């Protein structure tokens, strides 16, 4: 019998430990599929963050390192500068990248470091139990915004992709979602482009992935997918914000 579908080589045999309905599993798989398709597993080095995906080092079957909270882009910079022939990606959540790690991501992007950033935006802190993130929507109830996020005192949700796309050093930026098959297919294409940019030595690439956190949103997996569609996508529009002509 011909095998038409299987686990990517770039994932280990370990079953994912993420919550039911969480999109980390899909995002991991897409990255792993892209690494497989380019045949770069043996020269890829992944940097995992602090947060739920701190365990990404268990699931990716390539060299991995865990960075301090928010510092993944700096760690990736050190790796890439020391080993320019390796393919380096960071995998970071919104608390990691958009809150405690803003300096690192902005300056890594601005230097045009030739790395790829996978940015999981689920509008909440997952691992610590559902606190407000910089990307939490206005009015969204979290453990630390129990009356809903009030823009007057807590600011507006941060649009990371738009913010970084304004930097000249950045080569490729897109925002994708994983809430339905059509979006997943687009997301994979986008991740592939981001890695292509790095393979071509063209500079900094980032894919912002709108993701679910059913556990901390207090929704079922299906409701969570719907919540992405109805609440996140209207505020965080999908699409490519910056792309070099050669890979578009």
């Amino acid at each position: 019998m011909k095998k038409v579908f299987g686990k990517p080589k770039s994932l280990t045999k370990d079953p994912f430990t993420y919550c039911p309905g969480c999109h980390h599993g899909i995002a991991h798989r897409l990255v792993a599929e892209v690494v497989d398709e380019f045949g770069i597993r043996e020269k890829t080095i992944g940097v995992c963050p602090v947060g739920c995906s701190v365990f990404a080092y268990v699931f990716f079957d390539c060299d991995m390192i865990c960075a301090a909270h928010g510092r993944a882009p700096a760690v990736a910079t050190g790796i890439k500068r020391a080993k320019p022939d390796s393919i380096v990606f960071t995998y970071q959540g919104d608390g990691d990248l958009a809150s405690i790690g803003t300096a690192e991501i902005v300056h890594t992007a601005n230097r045009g470091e030739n790395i790829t950033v996978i940015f999981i935006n689920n509008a909440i802190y997952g691992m610590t139990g559902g606190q407000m993130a910089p990307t939490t929507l206005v009015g969204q109830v979290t453990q630390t915004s129990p009356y809903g996020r009030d823009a007057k005192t807590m600011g507006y949700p941060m649009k990371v992709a738009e913010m970084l796309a304004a930097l000249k050093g950045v080569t490729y930026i897109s925002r994708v979602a994983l809430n339905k098959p059509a979006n997943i297919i687009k997301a994979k294409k986008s991740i592939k482009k981001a890695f292509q940019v790095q393979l071509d030595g063209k500079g900094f690439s980032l894919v912002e992935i709108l993701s679910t956190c059913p556990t901390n949103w207090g929704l079922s997996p299906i409701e969570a997918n719907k919540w992405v569609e109805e609440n996140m996508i209207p505020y965080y529009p999908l699409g490519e914000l910056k792309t070099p002509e050669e890979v578009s």
Partner: protein
Amino acid sequence: MGEKMLMKGNEAIGEAAIRAGCYFYFGYPITPQSELTAYMSKKLPKIKNAAFIQAESEVAAINMVYGAAATGVRTMTSSSSPGISLKQEGISYIACAELPCVIVNMQRGGPGLGSIQPGQADYFQATKGGGHGDYHLIVLAPSSVQELVDLTMDAFDLADKYTNPAMILGDGLIGQMMESVEFKERKKINLPDKEGWILTGCKGREKNYIVPFNLDPYEMEKLNFKIQDKYNELKEKEVRYETINLENADLIVVAYGTVARIVKTVIANAKKEGINIGLIRPITLFPFPEKIIAETSEKVNKFLVAEMSLGQMVEDVKLAVNGKVEVNFYGRVGGVIPTQSEILTEIKKYLK
């Protein structure tokens, strides 16, 4: 014979590091060590496959070091007191991940933004860990520009040997002063192979991973014990110090770095007045030369610890003599350097 040159301390560190094979430098400007960052920015771009980055912050700089060290290259960062405080998170991660690197601290007066003149008040931070968790750095304290050169080279070897971050703990005076230095031919030494743990892509092998955590407390405790074993080995094998005139001394001064230099002149001046002073100068602050201090305390019953702090290393000296003899303290702080006559006056107080 190596060549002799006149060099500023901070630049001499840079040259020594490059000659020790460190081609990856990440730093942030801060007085009084900026000449080192500038030196690396001039030299490293001329070396093939080397990298210099002026990082956006001290935090980013140490994390770039973490990333580079994970690939097996020799790498370093440098700063001065307030900047070193900012790096502590990263240093703790590097120690936990057991990665080798070198961190230079050209101390200035503290606390807070402090002053930009020399200080030694980061002794606790440097020798007791500095960041969170149970760890130590290998801490080397140079007393001259020549020693800056030699210890910088040694620091890379020691870091590689023990897969632990090493720190050069100098101060603004040593960093800023110019002295004649010689870059000596160094003996080739055998260092452990890094192949087993470095991240270079998993071609032809299982994946490697570096994770400075373990959510299983028993496993995390095991990792702590393993790291602790290295410190015990360091204490056994790597203690370094200089002694002067320990025989027949009426009083022993314990001082390191800049203060030890001053004390050497004090000893010569005191001798003219018929006062016999001995010096124990720790060169490794961690591991601390407690044995020689304990042994000396069997023969001389008066000690004075002189520091540019309000009493930090003195605690380790007291632990070493374990209450057997009198340990006195003299310190200037905030960027003030003690003078020879001040120290001699202090010594005379205890010899009455």
